[in-house]
């Protein structure tokens, strides 16, 4: 019975793996100037991207209904933890969901970065975040340098190298 259960779990894992080969990569941004972003987090504190100048910022648009968004969150948190003490911040912007849903998600997956609320999705539209997760890596100069649409392993060497390049 135990052997059967293990086999079932392994088969399930193989199926999940075969269904989630990642096609996403960080690509150089060619979309022009950084749009403004000033949004409240779940506690009501406003985060203004303009005030983060001098830091590398990952702006990540996400939703609880977006499976790849949820899947990549832990890797974002791992990246953030590994850069502790360095000028690196994450602003995760939820797209137009009720506070109760975000709170439920946050309780199930505690994260070390603020979850901001784009209440009507208008900020996401300004950022052209049509395909979620939509992630923008902003350099210390305040400009967007890289973009990724889709799930990414943010703790991978390839991503770390690009973040390190921006931190220099």
């Amino acid at each position, binding site marked *: 019975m135990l052997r059967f259960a293990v086999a079932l779990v392994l088969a399930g894992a193989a199926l999940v793996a*075969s*269904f*989630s*080969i990642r*096609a*996403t990569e960080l690509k150089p941004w060619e979309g022009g100037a950084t749009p403004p972003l000033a949004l409240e987090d779940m506690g009501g504190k406003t985060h203004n991207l303009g005030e983060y100048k001098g830091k590398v910022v990952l702006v990540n*648009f996400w*939703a609880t*209904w*977006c*499976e*790849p*968004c949820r899947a990549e969150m832990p890797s974002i948190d791992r990246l953030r933890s590994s850069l502790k003490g360095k000028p690196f911040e994450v602003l995760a912007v939820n*797209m*137009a969901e009720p506070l109760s*849903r975000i709170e439920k998600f946050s309780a199930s997956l505690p994260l070390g970065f603020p979850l901001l609320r784009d209440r009507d*999705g208008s900020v*996401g*539209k300004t950022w052209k*975040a*049509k*395909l*979620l*997760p939509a992630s923008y890596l902003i350099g210390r100069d305040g400009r967007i340098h890289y973009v990724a*649409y*889709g*799930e990414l392993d943010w703790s991978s060497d390839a991503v770390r190298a690009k973040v390190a390049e921006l931190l220099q």
Partner: protein
Amino acid sequence: MNRRIFLKSAAAAAIAQSLPWRTAFAQDGWRTFETVTRVEVRDSFGVARAWVPLPMEMDTSWQKALGNSWSGNTTTAEVKHDGKYGIAMLYMEWSDKVMNPVVEVTSRFMTRDRATDFARADSPIDLSAADRKFFTAPTELIPTDGIVRKMALDITKGAKTDVDRARAIYEWIVDNTFRDPKTRGCGVGDVKSLLESGNLGGKCADLNALYVGLARSVGVPARDVYGVRVAPSRYGYKSLGAGTANITKAQHCRAEFFASGYGWVAIDPADVRKVVLEEPPGNLPIKDEKVVAARKRLFGSWEMNWVAYNNGHDVKLPHATKAPKLPFLMYINAESDGELRDQLEPDSVRYTITAREITA
């Protein structure tokens, strides 16, 4: 459908039926829906590609896009746009090393019923000269000269305003066409052939394209709007809603015309003919009260148990090997090893679309 939901919708339908259509519509607010499209390119050899239409990106007073996401084993997944009409689609590509190409695309959007109050010509929206020209121009399958214009001039004789002309064409379509259940998919919208054949049967892409062609040919800006039904009708019409959560074959296109003072006006003569043919017990007479009510309602309003994708024609699929021009993009398209699969045969690509309303 569970009993509680059924009772709720039955009660809503009963209330709605006791109200004039417009009053019932005005009481509705925004509803949120999710669609999940799963595409498998079967028996794929070589590079595979797929194109999935996405909800219209532009926010309107009746639809707002909330976002899309995907998961699967694609090598590339990008939002692409048709240059002329701005049609949004998710383009996916699988390398020849991927044996079983598969993707799931999730889209969320909000909709709200829409209606035009013809007693108030106070809409500030106007069309630029360029837009007016764009929405009165012919397309490959919708000419605006020859038999189309001749027919439209006859139909609109004596009509003084754009609304009069639009209404005359609407009534003519309802009175003179029929829904042909044998038409593949939603039809192709070959307006000239339809008129020349004298056989005015078809489905929404034929009948509403005929409307658009006739309207454009007499200078009334008009456009088809392609999409898919996502929920049952709450107004007592079984034929005008998605019967189940599986909406793989629930594609439907509608139409709009533009009139100064009213903006874009929703119409759907093809759905009137659908009520005639399909509303139980079927083959209803044109004077049946359900048909009469639908006919009145569908000149000026839409129930938004449907999501709009786009209003494009003559669509070139980006990166398609043989770059065929489609009359419109309403279905999932896929190709493998350079051959485009039949978009009207979901089993040749194996795709399913499911929809659900988000209530919490």
